[in-house]
């Protein structure tokens, strides 16, 4: 399936299925990271991701547009990834295949917190493309490093698609 076909398929998915695809994509993007198990570690990581994305958004002077319904926002995010970062298409394709297989789990359904997953996806995509110039200013400040962002069009798009999920 090429990326355009994937985009078409994503447009036909339910919100639950979109969440599933995001879950698998996040897992794929962070496959080389150490497992995060404790609640504290998870919270810290999530906060770190959000701060990074907010800082990057501020650097680019991005402002949140009219908020989309969650389903639309997820479609937008996945479409953006497929458009600007097509190398992640295979992971999305595998998730879609898994959905079609309809493996019935004898449990009570899956649960995904988009406020954690979406920033984790965005941070995993954007982080390797940025150069940090961490510059301690010597004073107590929330922002003690500078983020240099420029020249990569996908970053801005991804950040825009992620903004609705950052404050959840």
């Amino acid at each position, binding site marked *: 399936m090429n990326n355009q076909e994937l985009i078409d398929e994503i447009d036909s998915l339910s919100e639950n299925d979109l969440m*599933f695809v995001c*879950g*698998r994509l*996040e*897992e*794929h993007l962070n*496959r080389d990271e*150490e*497992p*995060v*198990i404790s609640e504290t570690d*998870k919270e810290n990581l*999530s906060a770190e991701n959000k701060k990074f994305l907010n800082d990057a958004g501020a650097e680019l002077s991005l402002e949140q547009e009219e908020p989309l319904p969650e389903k639309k926002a997820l479609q937008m995010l996945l479409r953006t990834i497929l458009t600007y970062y097509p190398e992640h298409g295979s992971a999305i394709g*595998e998730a879609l295949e*898994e959905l079609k*297989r*309809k*493996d*019935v*789990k*004898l*449990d*009570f*359904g*899956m*649960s*995904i*917190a988009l406020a*954690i*997953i979406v920033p*984790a996806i965005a941070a995993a995509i954007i982080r390797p493309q940025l150069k940090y110039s961490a510059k301690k200013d010597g004073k107590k400040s929330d922002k003690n490093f500078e983020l240099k962002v420029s020249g990569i069009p996908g970053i801005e798009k991804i950040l825009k698609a992620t903004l609705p999920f950052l404050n959840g």
Partner: protein
Amino acid sequence: MTEPVIKEVFGPIGNSTLFVTIVRGIYGGKNYTVCFSSARDEMMEDLISRDLPVFFKIALDSLLNTLKSPSETSVFLLLLTKEEIQENAEISMYLDVLNTSETELERIADDALKNLLFIKYNKEINNKKYIISESGQSFDIYNPENGLSFPVTAVKHGKDVLELLGEMAPDLDEYHSDLYWHETGAYVASNDPKKAFRSFYYFLKLKPADYDKVTHEQIIAAGAIVYQLLADTLNSDYAELIAEVTAEFAERHNLHADALSAWKQAGMASQTMGRIQETRDNYDRGLRLVENVPDKRVKAKMHHSYGISMMLLQHLDFEDRKTFSEKSYDEIIDVAEMHFGVALDLLENEQKEEALWIKSAIKLESIRIAAHRGDLETAVEEFSLLGQSKDFFPDMRLLATLGIYKLAAYKKLSETEGGGSVIFEKCLKEVSESFGDKIIRYPDKRCFYLIYWGDYYLEKKMYDKATEFYKAACDVQYSFSSKEIRPSPSDLKYGDYGGLAAIDIGARLQKALLNLTDQSKAVYGDYEPNLLACLLAEHSKGKFLKRDLGFLAVGVAKNTGAIASNKIFNLRRSLINGNLDHRIAMCDYEWISGEHLTSPSADVKPRDLISSGKFLKRQDIVETLHTPGNKTACLSFYEKSDETLIYIVDDSAEQLDVVKVPIGRRDLKKVFLTLQTGINGDGRSLLPIDSRRTASRRKYFDGFFRLREHLEPIFSKLESVDIIYLSTHGIWHNLPLHALLYPALWTEGKMPDIRYILSLSFLKLLKERQHRNRTKEFSTIGLTVVPALEDDAALFAAIATKFETVFSQTGAGLSKTFGADSTATGFINAMQSSGIHHILAHGYFDSVDNPMNSGILLADDNGLPSKKNIFNRDFSKSNVFSSAKMILNQTAADHITLQACSTGQSFAARGDEFWGMPRACLIAGADSVVAPLWNTDIENSTGLLAVFYENWLIKKMSKHRAIADAQRTVWLTDQENQSNFYNWASFQLIGN
């Protein structure tokens, strides 16, 4: 008439619940034989034996008056109750004149006592005369006009009887209130705490609101006396209930100060058992009343006691605090400090002795709090000065506490400073000289003291001395824990237990024993050190589970009357189900069952079986592990704070090896959580595993697979073993050990069976039950299949057909319920008629509130269940057939397979108790359960289980070999991919 002459006395006869004495004598020139019979207890026996001539006379007067011309050759059976004896009232009970041999007498008397009417008094209701009678705790109403009698429980007699009962209830309650009140006094006087507990409890429960024969103050005072009697004999669990009911009674009558004191006692009792949340709840219930209590001293005592209990429940000085989070721990200290502050404010200007005592106690605790917060050197200095201060109240208990606190502080100091052991040794000797005689007076302090000595000798590598001290400490701890009747409630905030109960003294003793140089010399009885260590580990597992199985293993003697038998069975069921307060159910059970219980084997007393099991002997191991034609071994895991001990014992019990695995509780928990997260996801940021891409979760499984390296020394010892029993402990219960062991053994060409058991004692009880109750033949296989509303029902139907096809080849009948027909009622019925039962449904494991709420989703009258209710944690609508319901309804199935997500998981806490669905199935009657440790998918699990049944039921492999072979078949398909264990190792076979 002249005084009677007693010629011969026979008895008391036998050891039944009945106290039977037969008297032959002359009265009025004629020979008579009278049999006195009553419920057996020491007080009754004393009274009857002492006053036998008096009773003989009263009895014959009564009989002669009734019968006019009794035969000399007859035996007169007289049944006595305590009331008649205590109050020396006229004996009014005449039951029968029996022409029978004396050998039959005891049986007849016993039946009579349990089943016949004991006429108590006449009653006129609605112008009709009735005779109210009692049999045990139930009543019968006898109408002399028409000769009919109605047992109270006979609801089938209809409305008239029920109305009559309603009218009579107050009279019956009053009658029994009198009885229980007098009994309470008598049992307190005879120093029988549990019987006093039972009588007082029933007195308070039955007493009518307008009962005015004793004052409220007398009742509360009696409650306090019974509490003290129970507390002094370490019956803390019973003490807690008595304090609670007394407090509630005092509250109802606005006696707030009394209620406050009783709640304080309830808190102290809970604290003695190490139950942190329950202790807090009891104190907090008391503190609600504090505004209504004007007496500052009463209030101060409450706050002081609350603080002390909190301090006693923390156990910072020991490494064993396991599930305790630092946050909860700090909170306990903060709570203590806050209450000490309030107590001191309230006592500011008080100079009475009691106030000075409290102030001294608080000072002592304040230093300890400072020590906990890090200022050890100052604390050590202050402890020394405090003992010499004239402001310090020189009370024995306070001095003992001071001694223990000094030891705690020095121990900690010694761990942080160089040359620590010298500092500690000096302190230990000093404390022994100054406080030793005081410390040993208080069991809890004595226990800590013994542990410190044991620790000292352990560090000095003087293992024989360490063994001696730890053994003594273990005995003290056991004297507390053995009297705990209720399993501790799940306490996710504070952990299972606090204080003394939380310290793993058994682990210390095991360490000392295993280090003894001469392992061939028996240290206690005929136990060699390593065997004793292994049995200590085994004994510590599943106290209440063993008790539950014990209840099922004991029988009721054939000559037990019908009513008594019925009551014994009902109480036994209540104790296992926990649907009645365990304490009162246990007391009733002991009261009614008396000596009626029988044991499956001659060398085990029934009482030992139901008191959490007996310490095993070498011969027990041999018999329990023996399986004809097979070489058997048991791997017993014991999780400690710093390592795991694995005992390997074979079926001769001659060879016992110990492997120390350097992975402790905390690391093990991390391995388990990572493994579970890797498979089931975390419900927030990680989805469940994809069964076709298991390798993608490899990083979550690495920690688990690293355990294999630690288990390496085991494999060589299992080379010739056909059956491996895994007796797990703590976190090990939830790890798929077979996923590590099988591949290693299969690769070497070995094909053993692995069977999970909870302990050797558990296996022994299971085998005993099998011998007693089971036939291995079964004619019906049950199949229950329940898709959820959200599922593809056709897929479930196809799976059902697949299993049906396999089952149809076995020759057994099939009892199948599918979908909406699989209601709880249908399921319960099916479980009564099938020898094997397979359940395909959605499963739920409750690790948050109560693991016994875990279960399977069934249909109800509205049709199929919905997964959404569980997902949203709306359990009232969820229609979960819980573990508790499973036990309640029992099963005839010898084997149960739960093809339902995570139903094989268990919650090991609360005394390594293995809470969850497998426990429920085993207690309900099954001998084995196959259930998954994680969320399985329907396709994989069906494939595996179909092969299991084919192997077992068609190819006639043993059950264990059948599942092992099915698992191996799946393993072979992708053996290079370790992570594929997800697809073959999810199911665990538990039981025998």
